[in-house]
């Protein structure tokens, strides 16, 4: 699904590299935790997958595409195969839950009847039946993150990226979100999640990739958050 080969990323002259010689393979259907201290390059890794940034050297392949060589007008097609979730939800505050999720389909020009079918289906999947008409501010943080996940997943992407999706949530709510992501992973969707949340990583026992100063220092199946603790 994702292949990094000797990928480095330097944001500018004189900066130290945010990613240094990263080589990594993530297969279809994997659930990978990306851990590491602040500034270790987790978000940079995800941005490279999305082609929000361009690698300084090395090759990045995502879903069979060579991302580095991708023409800019083909980038949207790449992003349609990837769903993304962030710590701060990034919902549109003046749109209802239904509209927020539908937005992702509207901009792709999906016909009305497709939207009328997919959106409620996806909202049911994330456990938000009956809350279609609410505005984001009328929801708890956990529910807002579910809306964000529904939006990322409504287009049935084969890859879901999550950058600290539980960072703003209390532990209880976080567990709920993780269960949801696990369920989505079981449908065959590859999930890569950057996180600081040791409890969650330790509990889920999935593949863990640890970055430190832009280098992969650990890559374990069924790993835990801290290696040296």
């Amino acid at each position: 699904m994702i292949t990094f080969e000797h990928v480095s990323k330097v944001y500018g002259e004189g900066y130290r590299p945010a990613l240094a010689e990263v080589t990594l393979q993530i297969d279809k259907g994997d659930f990978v935790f990306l851990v590491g201290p602040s500034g270790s390059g987790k978000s940079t890794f995800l941005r490279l997958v999305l082609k929000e940034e361009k690698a300084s050297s090395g090759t990045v392949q995502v879903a069979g595409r060579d991302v580095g060589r991708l023409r800019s007008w083909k980038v949207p097609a790449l992003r349609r195969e990837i769903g993304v979730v962030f710590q701060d939800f990034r919902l549109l505050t003046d749109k209802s839950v239904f509209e927020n999720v539908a937005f992702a389909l509207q901009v792709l020009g999906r016909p009305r009847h497709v939207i009328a079918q997919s959106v409620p289906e996806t909202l049911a999947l994330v456990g938000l039946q009956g809350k279609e008409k609410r505005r984001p501010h009328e929801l708890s943080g956990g529910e807002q993150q579910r809306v964000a996940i529904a939006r990322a997943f409504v287009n049935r992407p084969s890859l879901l990226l999550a950058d600290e999706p539980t960072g703003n949530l209390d532990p209880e709510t976080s567990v709920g979100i993780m269960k949801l992501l696990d369920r989505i992973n079981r449908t065959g969707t590859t999930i890569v999640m950057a996180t600081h949340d040791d409890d969650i990583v330790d509990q889920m026992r999935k593949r863990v990739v640890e970055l430190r100063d832009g280098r992969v220092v650990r890559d374990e199946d069924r790993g835990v958050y801290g290696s040296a603790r």
Partner: protein
Amino acid sequence: MRLGFVLREMGAGLRRNFTMTLSVVLVTMVSLFFLGLGLLVQQQVSILKGDWYDRVQVSIFLCGEVSGEERCPTGPVTTEQRDALRAQLEASPLVDRVFYESQQEAYDNFLEQYDDALTENVTPDQLPESFRVRLTEPDRYEEIREQFAGQPGVEDVPDQRAILGPLFAAMDGATRVAIGLAALMLLCSVLLVSTTIRLTAFSRRRETSIMRLVGASRALIQLPFVLEGVVASFVGAVLASGALYALVEFGVGRLNDRPDFTTRLVETADVLWPTAPVLVGVGLVFSVVASLLSLRRWLRV
């Protein structure tokens, strides 16, 4: 579905930055108003030049009883002198047609042109007889003047251009001022369109970032912003055309209606074509260029 989406996004942008949109509309209006004014004055100049060239006649006044010694040392024109002049004129390749105006005809014209107080004391023999010459190339006016002024029997060949010259100069000056103001204001409106787009891009950065994330195409993301600038400029151009129409209708039109005013002036029809379309075109081109420039910087995919 997608068109509706683009239009909704554009409407949201326009509403969100209402003061900015209003500024763009007003500044575009003023800039295009001056541009249009410059174009109309130019049109007026060319109408006047055309009229003048149509009418242009070299008047060759001949010596009469009352002509001074100084100009007519040989006394009143003789029949031979008159015939020689006529022959010379008719032979010249510059001359289209020649009319002869006798003293009596001159007197009749004089009576028509001036009011009683002055004409009461004038008799036909006080007025000079003359040749009125229409030229093949009005531009080469001066050559005829030089050829005939000072010939025996010729009293004077007055230079008519001295009257119209300053008028044309003034109108050319007005055109330059109007075009200059238009350029200055167009610069403003380009700056404003790009600032508006920047502002809109900023205030809608959340929508845009979400659109980018879910894989919307570049055109779909950028179109609402371009359209926003285009709509504002279009409204400005239409308003500017309206203002020019009103100016011509009520300002120039009133002059045109006066019976004693015979010069042909620009009309509302001149505003409708070609001025208004030119303004709309210039407005659109500038706003699209401004949009694309600022989109490059502010809305990369």
